[in-house]
């Protein structure tokens, strides 16, 4: 395995891509305490109990058991989520409240709640926080009119400033049933940001004004 410390190029490589002459990366970064080393990882893992560590390793390798979703478990978890929502202040759950205002059935939508419960392995509090955060981000990015809707292929536009025309991510099913997500762009890690909202008829809906809107004409050009 090529060690980055052995193959480090000259100092000219460590230019600041933002344009400043100040070096972006200190040469001390590969010395002890500079970056996140294997020792740091070991220390992080050692904090866990044996069972937790085992579960995490199994999870990373895709062999962790799937939680059996009994009717009682689902009902109890959703009830707990509602209690947690009730304890949150209105500012935190503003986007969620707006979504429920627009689509009242969402408050009791089991399928929707299950997405977040599964994402947090049925930890009700964490699942609720995730749900509220997700709605906030969705509202920021897509606006109120798409808050309660599925984001379809027609609503998004592939970011044109990417150099590669293959900047599309795919979910690849592997043989053992585990899914892995493959981002094909050069440096785009976050799928959420690989797409931006297509310009819609009524502007000013997105709450973040700095978002670049990609129009159809831009795509053509």
């Amino acid at each position, binding site marked *: *395995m*090529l060690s*980055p410390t052995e193959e480090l*190029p000259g100092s000219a490589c*460590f230019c600041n891509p*933002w344009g400043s002459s100040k070096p972006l*990366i200190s040469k001390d*970064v590969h010395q002890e305490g500079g*970056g*996140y080393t294997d020792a*740091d990882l070991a220390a*992080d893992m050692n904090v866990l109990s044996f069972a937790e560590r085992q579960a995490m390793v199994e*999870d*990373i390798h*895709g062999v962790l058991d*799937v939680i059996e979703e009994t009717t009682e478990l689902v009902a109890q978890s959703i009830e707990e989520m509602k209690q947690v929502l009730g304890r949150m202040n209105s500012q935190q759950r503003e986007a969620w409240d707006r979504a429920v*205002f*627009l*689509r*009242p*059935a969402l408050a009791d939508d089991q399928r929707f709640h*299950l*997405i*977040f419960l599964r*994402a*947090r392995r049925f930890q009700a509090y964490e699942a609720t926080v995730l*749900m509220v*955060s997700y709605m906030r981000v969705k509202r920021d*990015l897509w606006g109120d009119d798409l808050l309660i*809707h*599925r984001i379809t292929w027609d609503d998004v536009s592939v970011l044109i*400033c990417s*150099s590669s025309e*293959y900047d*599309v991510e*795919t*979910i*690849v099913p*592997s043989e*053992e*049933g585990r*899914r*892995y*997500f*493959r*981002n*094909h762009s*050069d*440096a*785009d*890690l*976050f*799928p*959420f*940001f*690989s*797409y931006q909202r297509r310009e*819609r*008829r009524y502007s000013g809906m997105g709450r973040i004004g700095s978002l*670049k809107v990609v129009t159809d004409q831009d795509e053509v050009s």
Partner: protein
Amino acid sequence: MNSVVEDDPITQQRGLVIVADFGGEWKSSSFELIRYSTVYPFHTQPFRTVSTHCISDDPTRYHLIQAIRKFFPQDTRRRFRLHFGSPLETEYELRTFGLDVSHELFLEEDKRLIHHKKDLEARIEEDIRRRQQLDDEWRRQQAPYRDPASPIALFPNQHDVIMGRKKVVAATWPGNIMYRQVLLEYVDRYIEAQDVSSDRINKTMISVEILHILKSHYKSRLLNREDTRWVVLDDTDAQTKISRTLRDLAREKTTIQKL
């Protein structure tokens, strides 16, 4: 991406392994993405990220990510793996995690990590086709609620006008913005109708015309929220609401003109 996960219970249960390569040239979108990632944290994704594997053949980027990694939440840190080296080396490293990416990569003379474009094109087409299928299925399910003639409204569409006292919604909802714009075009005619005669027929005709435009051209419905459901106003009620709004707008405009 999120929409696909929403339709896939197996992915929801098992979580996703993310493989991202940070090879290639630096580009402006990278910095934009870093900026967005600080605004929208990665942990708001509606699925469980089992682990993240980053591939990089650039020492600068490698050290940058290593340094940033220290500031990740502890759980993310444990699940984050950064692989540095040639494509072959990173491929072998990924195999130790049960990830086979050999069909996606091949080596060229300059030994840079590049994608197997032919295979990739087919898979991307398949992916887009699958997403479009899911989108179409979703549209079919939602079609009854989007029909302007339907008296039931499960939720307001973007062209629908939300009536009521919730000013915040009225100021930002696209249907309400459109509704106000349409009404503003008719205000002058309405003021004239008020001046010329006290006969209500002219004013009623204007509100009927507006209602017709809203329904036929914009496919809009006027919705009122009652408890936990949306009710579509019938033509008489809708016309009354439009007349009332027109009257208010006319009064505002006249007051401003006087000032």
